[in-house]
């Protein structure tokens, strides 16, 4: 295939061909993506054709109040795959962690990318947005993250909130939330947002969203929390391979007991799988190696909002954060006092062995008929 265009002009198909991935490789990738996105298999050829024709799309990646775990999980690829190449292809025009050593040159790149791709770039955010005290708790180049987000989101086509911090506030938002951390959707309300929660999120989910966007020009179907329905439509509980044990009532009681070794359900050890929507049980982690439950630990619920503040990780869903002993003792005391007052009031109102005043004394009664007084 002859390609006179430079790397910046070439299509995704041409770039892949240059790297040794032919039509069949791309079609196979599309088949895998349609399965992952829960699309009908017959869509795969159309997806492959659209991907082959796709041109570079600008992505600006802003990292706010985060631990860099999301970026690490998404950009570390153990094997060179088409997914990884697509990440290369999407032209990561600006990313602070990767460009840190470039200094002010990186900032110039950012402004150029925004100007060149106005209205067309994807804005990817990881990390929460602190808003307390004017947003001073996370700043880049003298500008608060909050101001940066508002500024750059204004000309974005869509926003990807990557990780639970960006989606819902995550760890920085955990009680008492000293920095006033919030998710992207609490700041930006006038742009399409896709939340890809998880602490960190599964890399395949971001691939799926990007591929859908590149191939079809639109974001995939979202649920009521703006998460891609294909990946977050079911709970961990619904897909878990240990579900038969749950249904049979076979639970591990502690981390090293017989039940745990036999792979029984971890519900009693605090697993939050029943209320957590994610694809961990089907897609798994580290190239399909395993996921927390398979490794013997209950689900933390890390893709749900406020998962840090839902009671302990080892408190089962059957329990809750009940009252402490002191408030219970106070309540008991109130009850004793109240009941005693009620009883004393009742006692003083009526004396059961005193006859009522209206009954006359025996001496005042007339003698019975036929008897003398």
């Amino acid at each position, binding site marked *: 295939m002859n390609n006179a265009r430079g790397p910046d002009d070439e299509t995704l198909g041409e770039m892949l061909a240059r790297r040794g991935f032919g039509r*069949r490789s791309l079609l196979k*990738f599309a*088949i895998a993506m349609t*399965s992952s996105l829960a699309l*009908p*298999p017959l869509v795969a050829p159309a997806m492959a054709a659209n991907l082959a024709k796709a041109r570079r799309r600008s992505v600006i990646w802003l990292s706010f109040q985060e631990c860099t775990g999301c970026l690490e999980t998404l950009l570390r690829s153990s094997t060179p*795959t088409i997914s990884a190449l697509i990440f290369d292809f999407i032209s990561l025009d600006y990313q602070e962690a990767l460009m840190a050593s470039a200094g002010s040159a990186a900032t110039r790149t950012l402004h150029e990318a925004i100007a060149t791709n106005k209205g067309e770039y994807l804005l990817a955010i990881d990390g929460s947005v602190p808003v307390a005290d004017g947003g001073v708790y996370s700043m880049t180049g003298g500008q608060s993250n909050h101001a940066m987000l508002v500024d750059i989101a204004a000309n974005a086509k869509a926003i990807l909130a990557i990780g639970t911090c960006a989606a819902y506030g995550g760890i920085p938002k955990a009680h008492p939330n000293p920095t006033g951390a919030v998710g992207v959707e609490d700041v930006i309300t006038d742009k399409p947002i896709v939340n890809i929660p998880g602490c960190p999120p599964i890399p395949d989910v971001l691939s799926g969203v990007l591929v859908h966007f590149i191939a079809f020009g639109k974001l995939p179907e979202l649920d009521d929390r703006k998460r891609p329905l294909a990946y977050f439509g079911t709970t961990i509980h619904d897909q878990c391979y240990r579900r038969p044990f749950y249904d049979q009532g076979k639970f591990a009681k502690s981390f090293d007991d017989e039940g745990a070794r036999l792979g029984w359900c971890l519900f009693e050890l605090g697993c939050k799988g029943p209320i957590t929507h994610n694809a961990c049980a089907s897609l798994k982690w580290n*190239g399909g190696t395993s996921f927390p439950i398979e490794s013997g630990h209950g689900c933390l619920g890390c893709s749900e909002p406020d998962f840090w503040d839902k009671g302990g990780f080892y408190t089962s869903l059957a329990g809750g954060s009940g009252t402490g002993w002191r408030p219970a003792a106070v309540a008991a005391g109130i009850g004793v006092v109240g009941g005693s007052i009620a009883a004393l009031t009742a006692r003083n109102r009526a004396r059961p062995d005193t006859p009522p005043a209206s009954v006359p004394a025996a001496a005042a009664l007339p003698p019975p008929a036929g008897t003398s007084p």
Partner: protein
Amino acid sequence: MTNYSFLGDDALIDALMMEIASLLRNFIDNREHGGIDLLGMPLSPECLAALEARLGSGEVTIRLDAAGRSESRETGFAGVWWTSHCDEAGRRVALLIEVAPVPDIVPPDICEIEGALSRLTANTNFAVRRGGNRGTFI
């Protein structure tokens, strides 16, 4: 996906066989290819094995090396293929039942064949005239 194991594997397999039958009918009537994404179904490993056994094996197995190993095996029913795709790490990324004369991924398209002709004749003194079926030494 809700766990449907209480229905029994037989019911699920019968339902899938009916769907394969309707895809075959559709191909016979309209020449349209069909497919069923097995990874998208709530099938236990035992149910998958039972389905594979029910479909049986045919005469043709096609192996593909493109961004990882893939295999398409014709089942005991002509035109019904059991296709498995793995990535470079050997992890299965798709499992399909395809209803077609040959799985869609197998035949090269015309652009690839034209490209092959170009490469084949590029460094030789042999050319083939368009429309002719004989080569000519230049």
